[in-house]
């Protein structure tokens, strides 16, 4: 490192020190604190509104979830109805609708098969 470079570094350090002194902090206006609190309160009002909206959204989302779960459960119960084959389901329905005695009568009234066939 040359002597010239070291001198330059020292010179820069002195300049930066002088800069610190040259940059005096401006004085705050007398209403600094009232304005600060007014800004805090206005931000607070805004965040409170945002908070209310967020809460409302959360409640709506929870309600929608419950509704979706209920719908899902309902559709699953409906699906149980179709677990059998078409013929089985038809049989079960017919048995449920027609009393066993009637069913026996129907069977008896049924025409006999053609002997020629």
């Amino acid at each position, binding site marked *: 490192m040359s002597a010239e470079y070291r001198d*330059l*570094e020292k*010179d*820069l*350090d002195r*300049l*930066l020190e*002088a*800069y*610190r*002194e*040259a*940059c*005096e*902090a*401006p*004085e*705050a*206006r007398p209403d*600094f*604190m009232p*304005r*600060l609190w007014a*800004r*805090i309160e206005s*931000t607070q009002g805004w965040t409170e509104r945002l908070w209310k909206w967020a809460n409302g959204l959360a409640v709506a989302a929870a309600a929608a979830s419950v509704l979706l779960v209920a719908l899902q459960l309902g559709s699953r119960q409906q699906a149980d109805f179709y677990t059998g084959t078409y013929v089985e389901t038809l049989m079960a329905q017919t048995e449920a609708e027609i009393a066993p005695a009637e069913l026996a009568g129907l069977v008896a009234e049924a025409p006999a098969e053609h002997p020629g066939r």
Partner: protein
Amino acid sequence: MLVEFDIVERAQAGDAQAFNEIVQAYRRRIFGTVSRLIGRPEDVEDVAQEVFIRLYYSLDQLRSPEVFEPWLYRLTVNAALDYLRKRRKRKLESRVADLSEQQVMMADAAAGSKVQVDEKEKARIRELVDSLLAGVSEEDRLLLTLKEVEGLSLKELEKIYRVNENALKVRLFRARQRVLRAYAARLGGEARKGSDHER
């Protein structure tokens, strides 16, 4: 620390009076730092208010009062950076060319008396350093200002920037080298001008 730990704790608990005490204690220091970081006296108060608003809303995130000062510095640096980014977005003229109203007034008023001569000299120093610092990125300028002008130690900077000391040293060294080169060029230019003038 400019305030006792218990005042910070009371402010964290929502005590408005304690918060006021913190603002009163740190106002001058924050004004000085913001002024040096952004270089526009007319906007210092707004940025300082922004710092204190951020402080108010994030006090509950402060883990312990012992780290209050570096933490407040970090809020200050971030607020200054946000301000500078916004200003850049607004495409205002460069910081060097754009002498603040106060600086212009100072320059205009400087004529004659000792005080005015001093003010003129201060304005010249500010302009010179601002032009040198304009040669590095905004982030590096803030880092250099905190280290070289504000006098923060590497340990303090480590806490503010949350990066390790070696990374900071490298960044600072490069930024300082750039400023030194600009300074040498400036001195060379002035020397040339002087010799031309003599001829």
